[in-house]
């Protein structure tokens, strides 16, 4: 049976997704193409072996519009025979892209493909693409649409996570990320972003606040209470009438940061790896996607994980390490609660609360982080998953070879 292997994974450091962020002056095209170049150059890769490049991008408009993957392939001076495709699975786009690349390899359509993603949130603002889901009353009324932050607060309310719980999780995320950086645990994947003179613009995740503690977080006001007052709390309560009210516990300090970044994962068959003279780092053991209840929206990770583990004949305990995107603290707390996953197997090097969540790229980033950590601590099996707008989940299980 055909297998799909991961041969390499790279990512940019994450720049603050604001006008004063270090990557604000870099185009999304440049972010993506530098990572493609890194994949090529680190591996001495003949790019004509790469059949396709699939890139997640959640705001595909303006400079990120018009199939940025193909533009990046050409910008990176890949062989013109390498095609490019942009996909949008919201926050899981990066992982979905790797899964598509793997599926192409598994099906024999491609021998080698790159899955990854790019998002310059400082240059193309989140939410600027509109979308029927939130705006067309045909969709929003029927499906009890609420903004994601309200969904995260719904999870906290319904599953009993207090403000202290979510803040404590976030303090730990910052601590873990700081420790991981200080020990150089991300070294293998990080490819600094260069300017047009070839000088380094950014070589570390600049969103982190290692000094974060419970007191500093306590000073932050709930970010979604105002949305709630506009009517979204009422919508949430009509979907889950067991809530007397929505507890607004999430804020900027316990939600994922807005950042710029890109990441790429090189996937190929055993044979293609041999042809390219590469040694596989991991096998993609299984992949899955799922739809979940759209109003609470962010409970897809446990659902898709259960689905995938069942397909693989595994249990949650069989997984040595987990990476679940820290979109909001309650999302991770709920996942650990639902699947009884201990915190020391989950996001051991911190996550998006500390380092940020460049929407289209994050899925590929956390897969790379997972693989690096599996190699560093000699673990066999890992699972990466993300919660997704509209109520979905995507997951991938990898094992080292």
């Amino acid at each position, binding site marked *: 049976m055909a297998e799909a292997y991961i041969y390499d994974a790279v990512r940019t450091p994450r720049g603050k997704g604001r006008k004063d962020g270090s990557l604000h002056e870099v185009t999304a095209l440049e972010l993506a193409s530098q990572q493609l170049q890194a994949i090529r150059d680190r591996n001495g890769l003949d790019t004509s072996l790469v059949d396709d490049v699939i890139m997640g991008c959640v705001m595909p408009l303006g400079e990120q519009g018009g199939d940025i993957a193909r533009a990046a392939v050409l910008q990176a001076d890949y062989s013109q025979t390498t095609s490019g495709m942009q996909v949008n699975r919201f926050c899981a786009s990066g992982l979905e892209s790797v899964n598509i690349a793997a599926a192409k390899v598994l099906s024999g359509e491609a021998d080698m493909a790159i899955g990854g993603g790019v998002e310059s949130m400082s240059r193309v603002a989140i939410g600027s693409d*509109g979308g029927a889901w939130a*705006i*067309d*009353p045909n969709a*929003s009324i029927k499906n009890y649409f609420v903004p994601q932050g309200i969904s995260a607060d719904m999870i906290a309310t319904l599953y009993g996570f207090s403000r202290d719980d979510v803040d404590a999780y976030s303090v730990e995320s910052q601590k873990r990320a700081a420790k991981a950086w200080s020990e150089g645990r991300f070294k293998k994947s990080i490819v600094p972003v260069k300017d047009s003179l070839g000088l380094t613009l950014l070589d570390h995740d600049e969103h982190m606040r290692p000094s974060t503690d419970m007191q500093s977080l306590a000073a932050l006001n709930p970010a979604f209470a105002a949305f709630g007052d506009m*009517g979204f709390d009422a919508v949430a309560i009509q979907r*889950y*009438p*067991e809530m*007397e009210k929505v507890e607004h516990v999430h804020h900027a300090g316990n939600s994922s940061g807005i950042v710029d970044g890109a990441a790429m994962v090189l996937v190929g068959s055993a044979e293609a790896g041999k042809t390219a003279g590469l040694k596989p780092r991991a096998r993609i053991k299984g992949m899955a996607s799922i739809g979940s209840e759209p109003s609470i929206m962010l409970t897809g990770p446990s659902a898709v994980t259960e689905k995938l583990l069942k397909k693989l004949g595994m249990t949650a305990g069989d997984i040595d390490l987990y990476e679940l995107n820290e979109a909001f603290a309650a999302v991770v707390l709920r996942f650990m609660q639902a699947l009884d996953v201990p915190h020391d197997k989950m996001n051991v090097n911190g996550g998006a609360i500390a380092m940020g969540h460049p929407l289209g790229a994050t899925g590929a980033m956390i897969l790379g982080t997972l693989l690096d950590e599996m190699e560093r601590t000699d673990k066999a099996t890992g699972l990466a998953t993300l919660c997704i707008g509209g109520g979905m989940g995507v997951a991938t299980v990898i094992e080292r070879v």
Partner: protein
Amino acid sequence: METFKIEVDADGIALITFDVPGKSMNTLTLQAMKDLAEIGPRLKDDAAIKGAVFTSGKTTGFCAGADLNDVMGALAKTDAKAGFELVNGLSNALRAIETCGKPVAAALNGLALGGGFELALACHYRVAADDNKIQVGLPEGKIGLIPGAGGTQRVPRMIGVMAAAPLLLEGKTLRPQEALGMGLLNAVVPADQVLENAKTWVKTGGAVQPWDKKDFKIPGGGPYHPQGAQMFMVGSAMLRKSTYGNYPAQINILKAVYEGLQLPMEAALRIESRYFVKTLATPQAKAMIRTLFVSMQELGKGAARPAGIAPWEAKKVSVLGAGMMGAGIAYVQAMAGIDTVLVDVTQEAADKGKGHVEDLVKKQASRGRMTPEKAEKVLGAVHPTSDYHHVKGSDLVVEAVFENRELKAKVTALAEAELSADGVFGSNTSTLPITGLAEASVRPANFIGIHFFSPVDKMGLVEIIKGAKTSDETIARAIDYVLKIKKTPIVVNDSRGFYTSRCFMTFLQEGVQMLADGYAPALIDNVGRMTGMPRGPLEMTDDVAVDLAYKIADQTAKDLGDAYVRGPLDDVLKALVVGHERFGRKNGKGFYDYPENGSKTLWPGLAEIAPVKIASSTPELVAEMKMRLLYRQAVEAARCMEEGVVTDPRDADVGAILGWGFAPWTGGPISLIDTVGAAAFAAECDRLAKTYGPRFAPTQQLRDMAAKGETFYGKAAKSKAA
């Protein structure tokens, strides 16, 4: 043309006078719609015409909107395609006027509502008389319809989505000055200058609407403009917050605006017409139009009045008891010009009642709804006293003392001593049977129940209760009185709790029963609100008073003796009232706690009285709970129909919505049963009875109706025809 008359003057201005023959008020009849379709082509093609002015030939106003009987009748007989063509035909007729290439003005010399205002909006210029009594707007949404004929499209294009929302969704009507301020009118002038103003404008006016110009932008932005996007996102949430998704009209209005604003006008009008036809086909629209429009109008004209009895007018009415209720009754009477004697035990108590009247008057005056002269007149009509001699000469006495049989008997005797032989005595009781109270009367034929709802100045319903000996003449007089004070009367027969209180209590009881069953209290009240009831059953019990609910249950148990089945509901009420002195909102402690600053929160101690077994919901569970709460009331209303407590489905439905706020989207409990169908309703009730208890058991009448495929309204129409 039958309904419009065109006269072209020396300046080439066509004066188009709207005047539906044989009607006191202009409405858009099918004929008027047909005629309107001729006007656009005529304006365009007649070279002698340079411009046009629409006006009305009636003194009653410009146009009150579509003729609902005509339009509904026509649409009921057609399929979707023909329905669309009829509705969109009117839109096309107005569009042809709008694009005739010549300036067209609307001279609004009176009210312009619904289709009437939509006609005006299709004109290039609108001027109205400066008169606060004139209303303009699109009230279609209030009775389950959507504004057609371009209303959902022109208003947001004219003033933006945000400003348009309350006009379209809530059907908020405007006075001319308000409409001018919002940009829906171009000018407001003294009544005698309206026509001239319009003609003057036509001489120099432009003939292209803003949205037909190339550089047009929707004020505030359309759906995918950054600002507009936010508006639509929040708008849907606000709509769900206020309507719980129960009203297809409001949802369809928002959809029509969203979809239409992204299109040129002709396509936008087609979108609107489709949603109009779609909305009209919903059971909600049909039920709401029948109850809130047709039946309300009929009851408001005294439909329940026994035939052949001469009209009667209450000129002087005494009110016994100057508490909140009595004072409220005095206020509405004085507002209607009735000379009112307000009697209480002491002069001080009576004066306090008049003080309450004064507060209400001041509130109206301060909001500009009452002139100082009128305020003085109203206050002058209320005479507080402790002396029953002042009752003398009253046409009617309304007793509004405490719900105590002995007290009521005593004041009945005192008042009747002063009342003339044919004077009517009305008792405002919500619970005590009238036949029993009438035993204290020396002329029980003139004794009747006149049940007001609190607060009297706001609540539109009065429940008239016939005692065993009440005469038809007395009923007719009570109805005449209620109509005079501008309330809607329903007439019911004597029974425990009559009609409204009896059915309403079942809603509260079912909620408390759910609590006893182990449903989380938040779930109960949230689902209660989601049914379309104004509040959840637990919070409503707090408002009514928990100790009162307990007393009523206790009294019922005593009255029924062995027939009363004590249940967990009684235990919950007893634990609250006796065990914890939680009497409801009035002592700040009930199912909820009522902190002085801040909103109420559920009392945590409830979990000890009724341990929670069902703490999370599924859509299926919610649907089942909704059904319990609504069907429990509906089956009680069906019992009232079977027992003859109410005899007319219109009384039952209007009384339910106006009296205790029964979910208006259903059109009332009887409409709900008719909509579901007697067979399906009875089957569900059988299932509910099996699951939750015999209180859900359907009546024999429902089973008979189910067997024959009958509906309540169908039966009523048949018996009226017979």
